[in-house]
Each structure stands twice: as C-alpha cells, then as structure tokens.
C-alpha cells in the first residue's frame, strides 16, 4: 500500500512536470489554429514548418539562424575563456581560490532578469550600440561560469605532477598545455561547451534586454513577440516539440558520457 502511494506520487510529479510539453507535442499533430481544439490527426503543421508555407516564415528562419549562431559563438568563446580561468583558479591557493570560486558561482545563481537589466545598463553607459555584438557578449558572460564549473573537477582529479612531468621531458609550457593538459581536460571542456550551448539557446531575459532595437530576434524572443500578437502561430507547436526532443537527446548524450567516465574511473 505504502509502495503504491509512493509510486503514485512519483507519477503525479512527472505528469505535472511534463504535462505542458506533452500537451504541445500532442497538439502539434492537429491543424487547429487555436491551441486546445483537436480537429483530427495531421502532420500538416510539420510540413508547413519545413516547406515554409506559413505566415512569417522568413523571420522565424532568421530567428532560428540567429539563435544557433549566437549559441555556437558564445559556447566556443566561453569554453576557451572558462578553461583558461579554471586552470588559473586551480593554481591559486587558499583564500583567493575560495573567493574566486565563490564569485564564479554568483552569476549562475543570479536571476536572469538582473543579469539582463544590468548588462543593458552597462552597454548604455558604455555607449555600445546594441545588437548582435551585445547579445553575444552577454551570452558569453553568463555561459563562462558553467564551463569553469565543468573543467575545474577535471583539474582537481589530475595528478599534480603531470604538468611538471611534461616540462621535465622537455616540453615548453605551451607544448605541455597542448599535448598533456588540454587532452586531459577535453571531457570537461566538451561538457562545458554543451552546457553553455544549451544555456544560450534557452535564454530569453538577457537576450531581450541586450538585443537593442534593430529587430534582432532569437527563437525565444520571436515566440514571445509572436504569442503577444494574437495567439501562437500554429507551426510553432511542432517546432517546440522538435526543440524539446533535440535538448532531450543532448542531455542523454551528456549523461551517457558521465556514466562512461564514472565506469572508467571505477576500473
């Protein structure tokens, strides 16, 4: 009996968690313009989405392109910055190290809206005209701490003499970094990159405040604007479903990598 209730509780939680997305996914397979009306099974919305036979296709495609481009650039740059920062933090000692690690954690806990507004004010103050550049800079800002957080553990796990061993065998500091340190940090860097990429894809608040008035849209701001203009365009339903599946697959990949790393560590 106790077991039964425990099971029910879990399922109830999962239903509450996943109901909205399942709802959208289900209604992506019907043609109704109004969300919630079932007018029979159809894949027309999917074909509309891919053939461009819908209202505002151009700006939607533009938004998708922007989103991916911004996420790629932000993730790449923050992976580089974050890895360098992690190596630096790792070589610090005592109090300084604690302080910097703490400072690194704050932006992750900080509400997006605050990050967004403060970056907006900063850009205005510095007279930087807002557009692609500011959005990318903003995304790099909030992505980098995640990379630091995924690379640091790899450094702590590493035998502290390994870098020295490379120098000892005749490698210059740069060669030691390239041939020994980076290959060993690679798993952490990849996790960090994926994390940064999804964080950037996901972001609404920061983008909204830093995109300026040039009409730059990412997916999240596009959907927001679209929904406010008299109802969600029906074709966005299949798109959201596809995005959800994409993220799901990414997460599964990350988890599999982690599980494999853990298995290797045990061996």
């Amino acid at each position, binding site marked *: 009996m106790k077991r039964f209730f425990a099971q029910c509780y879990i399922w109830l939680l999962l239903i509450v968690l996943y109901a909205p997305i399942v709802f959208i996914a289900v209604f992506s397979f019907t043609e109704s313009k109004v969300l919630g009306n079932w007018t029979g099974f159809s894949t027309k919305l999917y074909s509309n989405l891919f053939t461009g036979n819908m209202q505002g296709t151009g700006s939607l495609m533009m938004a998708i392109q922007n989103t991916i481009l911004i996420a790629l650039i932000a993730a790449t740059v923050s992976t580089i910055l974050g890895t360098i920062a992690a190596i630096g933090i790792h070589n610090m000692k005592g109090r300084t190290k604690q302080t910097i690690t703490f400072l690194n954690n704050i932006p992750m806990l900080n509400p997006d809206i605050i990050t967004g507004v403060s970056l907006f004010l900063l850009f205005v103050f510095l007279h930087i005209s807002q557009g692609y550049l500011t959005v990318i800079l903003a995304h790099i800002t909030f992505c980098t701490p995640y990379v630091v957080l995924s690379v640091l553990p790899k450094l702590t796990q590493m035998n502290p*003499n*390994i870098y*020295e*061993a490379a*120098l000892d065998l005749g490698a*210059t*500091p740069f060669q*030691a970094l390239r041939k020994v340190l980076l290959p*060993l940090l690679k798993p952490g860097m990849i996790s960090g990159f994926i994390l940064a990429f999804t964080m950037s894809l996901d972001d609404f608040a920061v983008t909204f405040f830093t995109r300026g008035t040039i009409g730059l849209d990412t997916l999240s701001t596009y959907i927001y604007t679209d929904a406010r203009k008299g109802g969600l365009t029906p074709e966005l339903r299949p798109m959201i479903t596809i995005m959800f599946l994409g993220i799901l697959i990414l997460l599964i990949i990350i988890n599999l990598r982690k599980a494999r790393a853990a298995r290797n560590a045990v061996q």
Partner: protein
Amino acid sequence: MNNNENIIEIRNVSKKFGDKCILNNVSISVKKGEFLTLLGPSGCGKTTLLRILAGFGTADSGEILINGKDITNVPPHERPVNTVFQRYALFPHLDVYENIAFGLKLQKVPVDEIDRRVRKVLKMVSMTDYEDRDVDSLSGGQQQRVAIARAIVNQPQVLLLDEPLSALDLKMRKDMQIELKEMHKKLGITFIYVTHDQEEALTLSDTIVVIDDGDIKQIGTPTDIYNEPQNSFVADFIGESNILNGRMIKDRHVEFVGHEFECIDEGFGENTAVDVVVRPEDIYIMNKTEGAHLTAKVKSCTFKGVHYEMFVDTDKGYELMIQDYNAFEPESEVGLIIRPADIQVMHKERLCNTFEGELIAEDKVEFLDAEWECLPQQGLSVGEKVKVEVDFSKVDLIDHPEDGNIEGEVAFLLYKGDHYHLSIKTHGSYIWIDTNDIWDKGDLVGINIAPKDIKISKCDD
C-alpha cells in the same frame, strides 16, 4: 672520463615558505656517475631540494651548477635532467609506448630511432610486451617501470628520483631496489634519489646526505653514516642505536652508563661531555658475568627473524637495546662486553639551552619571543642585550599548551638510556629538554621555567 669531476654543485641554497625555513644554506657536490641519496624524515626539505634541481621550484638564494654551468634560472624543459615522480605522473591519455616516446618526439628524433630507443628501454625495465597497453591498466610496479623508462629514454645526464618506490609493497620494493642499482651501473649516469627509508638509502647509495629540518646533518658513504654518525640525529635516524650521555676522561678512555671503557677516539680533550653511540648488534651478551665490562638483567626478549632483540637494565640503571643470535631469558643476569672499536664518540651539539635575550625589567627578561620572570639581576641594566642559559633538566613541560608561558611542539625525541632528550620547536627556534616523562613526536606542550633556573649573563660581544 674523469671520474672525480663534479656534475652538480649545489651552493648555499636556502628556501623559505612564509616564515618557515625549508632549506637552510645547503651545499652539496655530486660526482659524475654517483648514486647520491637525500635521506631524511618527511618534511625535512629533501623533496623541495629535488624540485629545485628539476626546476619546478626556485631557491630564495644560492645557485645550482650542472657541468659547471649555472642553471639556477633555467626553466625545467631546458635542463639536462629527468625526473621519476613519486606517484608516477604518467600521461593517462597516452599508451605505454607514447608515454615513453613523449620526450623524444618533442626533440624531433627520427621515427625509427624513437622506435629503437623505446624498445631498448622497455627491454631494460622488462616491460617489452606492454607497449600498447593503457597506462591505467598497469599495476603500481609496472607504472613505476614505465615512469623510469620514460625518464631514461631521453638519456639525461642526471636522473632525479622522488621516493619512486614508496607506493609499492615491501617485496616489490626490494626487487625494484636491486633493479635500480643494476640500472644505475648499466647506464653510468648520475642518480639523485630522495627517500625517507634509511634501509633503502644504505642499500642503494654511493653517498648519503642526511637532512633534517632543512639542514644537512651528515654527508658520507653508507658505511660512514652507519658506523660513524657525527651527531645524535644521524645515529638515531639510521638503524637502531643506543645513544648515551658520556664523558671523555682522556684520549682513548670514555665513561658512560656508569662505567669506564676503552675506545679508539682521541682529541676530545679531558673530562669533556660527549654523546656515545653503541649499535645494539655491537654489544656482546653472555651468561657468565666474569670478565664482563658490566652486568645487566634482561627485561624483554623478542624474536625478530634473523636475531633476537633484547632490552636490558644495567647495574647502574641504564636501559640498553641488544641484538644477538641467541635468546636470553627475561630476568636472567647477563654480562656485557663492548669492544673499543664499536664505541662511537660524538661531540655534544650543545651542553645547555642558550638564547639571546633582552632584560626588560629588573626581574623580567625577554627571549624566545616571550617575557619570563627571573630573579632580580644585579650589575645588568634594563634594556641590555643578555645571554640566557637554561639547563636541559630545568625546563618544565605541561600537557596543556595554554598553561605554559610559551607553546611548543615536540619535534624530536631521543632516548638516552635513562631519560629522554626532547627537541621542542617553538616560533621557529628550538628548546631542548631532559625529562623522564614520556611524550610523543607532534605533542603540543606548554613550556615553563622557574625564575631561579634562568641564568642571565652579559652578552659575550
């Protein structure tokens, strides 16, 4: 090849971490092809010295020469030395072959020569069939062999080894010791070996440098270090020993454990206080008491494999450790003989505690960074620099550090047959104490001195 040529000169190297002195003005010369061991307890500075040689650490002062060339400021990758690390430090993303070839590839050695040299060293460390293996799949001993191979394949002039065998089990360690010794002979290059294991040092080395607390205590061959220790630290650290207070009556005559013995030492002067070392295996023990130098009663007898280890109480109340192939029953009366050549006489490092201090009131003196009450002083003015002397036996140790006038940590214990001689570290300086109480190394203690036991005199200069 000139065998007497010094390949490494370490000159006056000092190093501090914060206000803790790790190396104190250390100078060592290493001959070409020598197997030199830096031996000392953990934290004595031996690893720091090795890291300075490898270039991973820098000395605060002093210089290091290799082949007569000053390399004090040369970065590690340009030094003609290679290191075998304590925890192997193999590259986990490379297999055995690639680990060993790492240094050669960096030097742009042709591929077929790399192949030839890697195979040669693999054969040398008996790891021929392992070249494609993942280093994480190897046992500790195998990883250590790969680490050694990775270092010697570069044909360094000097091989530095940082406690390379400490992570291996005893049997493995013994085997590797023999292999290392053979490797040293075969390669003909200089080995500098760091260890805290005195037996390992005695087995392997041509020369041993005994280090304690950043100071060199003795440099010598294994037999010198064992048979003729220069101070009580070396005598105590290397092997088992009886270290006793003694008095040199005249040349070739020394008194200890309440008896007079003939010895072979000269030049200590007459009636000089000395330390005497007698190794436990050098005391002859027998059932009859006639013809013996002294008599004793056996207290305990333990079988140690090759020999028995016995503790005896002598007729004058000193405890001695004796090792012999024959067992003697506890409680039995025995006679002891010590031959002149087996008595090692050493200068005492100090006769009493001596500090530099300052008189800050008529009955207050400052030394060891603290104020002490003393008897009212005549003939000395307040504010004057003074010499403070305190007998070893007049210092009181207290269990609770906060109850003492100053706090200290027991840094070194020496059993002297009828009492303990302790070195207590306080604020970076030492105070020495004779006591009958039992303390352990690392104990935190409070230190008090009765006002009447603080002897104050004018500074010598």
